[in-house]
């Protein structure tokens, strides 16, 4: 059964039936993406040992569902870099208002990367993060409507 949530599009875009990866704690961008990016892997395998929800999971082309991002102020440019390298998540769906580091990352990707973007929707609420589970299929509309199957 589908369930629909409405958020605010920070970087608007459409996603059709992509797989969810869920973190119930703040996602440390640098810690999560750095190792795979450093070794120029074709996919990002989360390397943040402090995040049991995401650790060792594939994040590339997935829909990351999270409360917010945390950690180093390099976070935004790390997100931008993995987007430019073609190994970023396809979307980031925030239950809370977006934080300044994640906002920087998705906006930099939107403006400075050709032909690639990270769709971002925030303010989806705690109910969204309570409902969505790893592997569920996510559809995102331009207006920030998120459908979870």
């Amino acid at each position, binding site marked *: 059964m589908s369930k629909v949530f409405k958020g605010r599009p920070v970087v608007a875009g459409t996603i059709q039936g992509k797989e969810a990866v869920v973190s119930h704690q703040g996602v440390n961008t640098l810690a999560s993406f750095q190792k795979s990016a450093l070794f120029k892997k074709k996919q990002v395998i989360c390397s943040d040992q402090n995040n049991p929800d995401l650790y060792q999971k594939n994040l590339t082309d997935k829909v990351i569902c999270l409360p917010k991002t945390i950690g180093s102020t390099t976070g935004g440019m790390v997100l931008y*870099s993995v987007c430019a390298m073609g190994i970023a998540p396809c979307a980031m769906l925030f239950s809370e208002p977006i934080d300044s*580091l994640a906002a*920087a990352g998705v906006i930099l990707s939107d403006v400075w990367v050709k032909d690639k973007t990270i769709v971002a929707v925030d303010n989806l609420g705690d109910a969204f993060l309570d409902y969505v589970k790893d592997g569920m299929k996510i559809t995102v509309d331009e207006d920030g409507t998120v459908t979870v199957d």
Partner: protein
Amino acid sequence: MQYKMKLTPEEEGILNGSQGEVMAKVMKTLVLYGDAFGAERFVPVVGKGHLVTSFGLSVLQPVFDIMDELIGAGLKVEESFTADPRPIDYANVKCNLIEKLIFNKMMYGAQDPYEAQLHKLGLKGDDAFTCASYLSEVGNVPGKGDILSWAESSAVVYANSVLGARCNRNSGIIELFGSILGKVPEFDLLTDEGRKAKWIIEVKTTKKPEAQILGSAIGMKVMEDVPFIKGLDQWIGTELNEATKGYLKDMGAATASNGAVGLYHVENLTPEAVELGDALIREDAKVYVIDDAELQRVKNGYPNIWKDPNAKPERVFIGCPHLTFTQLGEWADRFEAELKAQGKTKVALNVVMTAAPGVLAHFKQDNKAGYDKLIAAGIKLTSICPLMYMNNPLCGKKAVVTNSNKLRTYTTARYFTDAEITTIAVKGEI
């Protein structure tokens, strides 16, 4: 593009390309960034910038591409900027051949060309690499009320809290764009309302709290919110002197890294708390009481993630964030006393202390006795970033101990208090 911010005709012109295509993209990025946080307008920045990105990490090629675009368009920071510390210093922080290979070929192979880019964009000088850019020796000291376009969480929280400047927790690149434009979108910590406290922290300890653990406890509790700290002045006084500033620097860095604090107020001490007092506290503020037991609980919760949890420590890092002139002197005295107590003349471990190039030069010149004590004890002084050193997977596997809660948070280093780490460094074991 559609946007909500109210732009002046000049700003709108820039967005539409009056200063070229690249500057239009810089403006578009900042407008979208402002819109994401409900900013209504741009406000002018004052003084120099500070960049978090000081390392030529090969994987950041897309960042270097943006830099090239900016340089190609003739853009730069007119007021100049400082940047975080360099990643490596083989003379003072030894590495074996394989570690060097990883640093030079895989990690920081782009360091030299990246520094050349920074110079072209307005880097203040070759000695401008430090996370403690706000120290007088570095020459990037904001005034109260100055609007900044900085990144580096420890520098932002210090500038906001101790100096009363106004800066959001910006990401890398965004801070450079704001410095190039000379304006930033006005939201959150740039506004009076955004600087009000959502938490009251009541310090009820029986002794002066360890700055790094107090900051850690506060950060983990309040996350990105603004705390108003009561009861700390009884332990560190009501005067913003050099010793107090050092304490607040370390406490603040821990709040920013263990949580995401960008501003704290300390009753009767920090500038806005002195000026406005309880008026800075929101009516719905929550209360967090910190006593001895709470600090112990927080410290006991730090995991030991060494490959061999019982390993003998190999290296000690002191100075994340970079040490002040006064702190270097305090460490010289602390090590002198501990060496005497243990009947030794040199430390038993590889001890590395980090401070800004200008601070080290000041220390060597104006506290020669302290400098000589540290060197005679076998302690290495450098201006690198310990975090970037430990980003090397091989270096990260080493048994490193530190008095920095930031380094503990981002690496495998184990945290010990100032007193504990002095004993460990001299004794050679935990």
